[in-house]
């Protein structure tokens, strides 16, 4: 330990001489001053042995050590090292106050209805929140430390009896096999442990919502927390899971189903709408209905670029706006969105850069991609739009279909923790399907999803019977 900020403090209490060592910025100085120091003052005059202190020191966690290297590991996690002169072993007292923020509302995955709290960067807090949702001893953690240099704590959580052991084993195996110097965030970890790094689609969900995680745990999924990351990794996750928001469970099933369908149509709009415009205007002018033709012709008349270039240009502008909005400080960012959108849009049309209809289409497909609850998925879809537009500009409808077929084959080839990624659709599982494109009422969702291969697949047999309509 070569840290210059390390504090060594010698205390003489009667005949005892104590040595305290700690990192001041990790230790709760209030407890140190108001609890620990008075306690040391009151120590008996005669020689004390470590066991005495271990027995009655007013600190929750204490432990004993004789290993020097271990001491520094503890010190950097906010423990105080106490050495009584003349004894061989040292005592470690947990008085940490790791700097962290208080609980806040979810910022990335906002929802209107349901719990608003989100995870924070502190692992302990996260586990605490989670245990608050699931007050059961079935919730099990496995702690793993990864990163040769960062020594990051990772917790693998799952529900005993509900999670399939092979899933848990897969996750633990993949995490422990990592040989890397440091993992700071779960966003990095997830890329190291997912099934196919080459796929653009995320295969494990990242979520900051404790309710989402709790629900996933009840479905028999495995959750990974990383120290310092407010996002938990949830798996195995199917493609459809990325389009589910936990809010869908809190609103009535008709509304939830409508919203889900809306999101899936948004997926297709986002992927193929601009491409269809490009294909129709570049190759298949026959397909344009006569009522639309006049307005299309009029709006295109001033545009000097071919539709492919026009569409790519506008898509780029939208992406610039989005990225600028994300990078700029919050207050500026908001104005950029509005000002940029309106001003650039208006000016582009006035300058004859693009047609009105295309602005509408591009805005619509960008908007559609923002409806997905998963940020990763929405980014993936937005990026995929570009190759599809390109294909549409080269081969029209044939090109779009080529892209779509490739995507379909690609998705079919993916897996999440070894389970098929496209699950409720293929292989088709009626039970999982009931909670995918649409959400059926809960009485028909009495089983855990097939995706997780839970050893105990019944969720609520009695409730299910009682709530069945007509009884």
């Amino acid at each position: 330990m070569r840290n210059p900020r390390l504090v060594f403090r010698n205390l003489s209490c009667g005949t005892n001489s104590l040595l305290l060592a700690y990192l001041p910025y990790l230790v709760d100085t209030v407890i140190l001053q108001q609890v620990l120091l008075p306690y040391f003052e009151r120590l008996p005059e005669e020689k004390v042995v470590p066991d005495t202190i271990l027995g009655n020191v007013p600190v929750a966690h204490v432990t004993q050590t004789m290993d020097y290297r271990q001491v520094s590991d503890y010190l950097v996690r906010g423990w105080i090292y106490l050495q009584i002169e003349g004894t061989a072993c040292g005592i470690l007292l947990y008085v940490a106050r790791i700097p962290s923020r208080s609980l806040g509302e979810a910022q990335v995955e906002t929802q209107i209805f349901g719990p608003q709290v989100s995870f924070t960067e502190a692992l302990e807090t996260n586990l605490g929140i989670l245990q608050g949702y699931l007050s059961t001893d079935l919730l099990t953690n496995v702690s793993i430390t990864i990163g040769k240099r960062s020594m990051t704590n990772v917790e693998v959580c799952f529900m005993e009896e509900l999670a399939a052991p092979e899933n848990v084993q897969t996750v633990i195996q993949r995490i422990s096999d990592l040989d890397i110097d440091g993992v700071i965030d779960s966003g990095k970890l997830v890329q190291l442990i997912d099934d196919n790094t080459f796929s653009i689609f995320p295969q494990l969900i990242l979520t900051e919502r404790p309710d989402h995680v709790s629900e996933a745990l009840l479905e028999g999924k495995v959750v990974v927390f990383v120290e310092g990351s407010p996002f938990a990794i949830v798996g195995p996750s199917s493609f459809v899971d990325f389009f589910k928001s936990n809010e869908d469970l809190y609103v009535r099933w008709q509304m939830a189903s409508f919203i889900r369908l809306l999101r899936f149509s948004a997926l297709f709009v986002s992927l193929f709408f601009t491409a269809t415009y490009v294909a129709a205007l570049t190759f298949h002018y026959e397909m344009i209905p006569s009522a639309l033709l006049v307005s299309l012709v009029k709006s295109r008349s001033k545009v000097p670029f071919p539709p492919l270039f026009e569409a790519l240009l506008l898509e780029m502008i939208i992406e610039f706006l989005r990225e600028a909005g994300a990078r700029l400080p919050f207050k500026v960012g908001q104005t950029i969105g509005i000002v940029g959108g309106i001003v650039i849009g208006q000016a582009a049309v006035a300058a004859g850069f693009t047609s009105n209809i295309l602005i509408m289409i591009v805005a619509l497909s960008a908007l559609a991609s923002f409806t997905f609850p998963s940020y990763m998925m929405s980014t993936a879809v937005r990026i995929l739009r570009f190759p599809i537009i390109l294909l549409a500009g080269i081969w029209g409808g044939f090109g779009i279909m080529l892209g779509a077929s490739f995507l379909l084959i690609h998705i079919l080839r993916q897996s999440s923790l070894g389970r098929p990624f496209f699950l409720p659709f293929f292989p088709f599982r009626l039970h999982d399907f009931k909670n995918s494109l649409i959400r059926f009422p809960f009485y028909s969702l009495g089983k855990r999803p097939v995706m997780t291969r839970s050893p105990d697949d019944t969720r609520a047999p009695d409730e299910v019977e009682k709530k069945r309509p007509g009884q």
Partner: protein
Amino acid sequence: MKRLRLLVHYLLMVALLNGCGEQQVLEKLGLAVAVGYDLSKDGQLLGTTVFYQIDPEARELVTVISGTAHTSKGLTLSQNRESSKKIVGGQIRVVVYHDELARKGILALVENLTRDASIGSNVYLTVAKGRAYDILTHRYPENSNIGIYLYQAIRQNIDGENMISSKLHEFMKDYYAIGKDPVMPYIERVKNELHINQIALFRDQRLVAEITTREGFFLKVLRERYNKGELEINIALDKKRLFTVIEHISSKKQMKVLDLEKPRFSVKVKMTAQIQEMAEKIDLSKPEQLNKVQKAIELAVKKETEQLLEKLRKHDVDPVGFGEIYNIASQKSGKKKLSKDECREIMKRAKYDVDVEIKILRTGVIG
């Protein structure tokens, strides 16, 4: 493995870069909306094309171009030479044939439309009184876009069941049928307006006669299922003649061959309708009165239908498709399938037993 992947990617890239399809970018095209065919004086085809062109400098969205050639493809070529845009047929909505051309036969022209993959089957075919060129090049003060104007006018009439539909597909289907002849709307320009008040009757591919839209109503009833529309009809009630309007007509027809040797057909028409207007005050709430009116309308409809059938026979055309029915019946009795000409020969001797049944459902909002 890695090298293979690279190779695949490379091949894909090459394919994409070299294999770009022929672009038909909207603004580089002249999108033909309506096409007219005339017979020019030297016996060549005179083609007139109404097309959109996307040009920021052009004052008008719609341009008309014409040219002469021997074939319709030749026309496109000669028109392309004159135009700054490539004229394409994928958006054609209406094709207008000069009636004199139609009298000589238009099969080759129509077939060329079907051969072109870019032309749809929803194109309306029409016959024009006078030159199509005059109709398409005339400046209509109320409508700057003659193509769409014509299209909407025809479509509106067909949707409202005032006119018999003659889409490209329907024309070809009727033409190829043994024992059925195609029909087309007959359009006419009267000063600054287009009138569609006649129906052109074809014998195979040749225009031979025309009937009024009123007769067209009865033809339509016999040709297809009739769902809406209205009819003003003169009935004889208690030895008085008076006019009545029936509407929301829906009809079914049934035709049977009664006799194969001396071709005789039974034609049964069942109609339901609503009385909209009577020229005289008659109390229709009484069942016997209503019955009387019903009978009178039946009689009037029957008479007009018979007149129409007589007219069709006189012109030796069969747009209803009696020949088809006859052919089926004769095949069922074990004879060989008739050819087009045999069928037409037989139909010359045809007799019809018309039977009309009308049910008045409502009599408007007052009794």
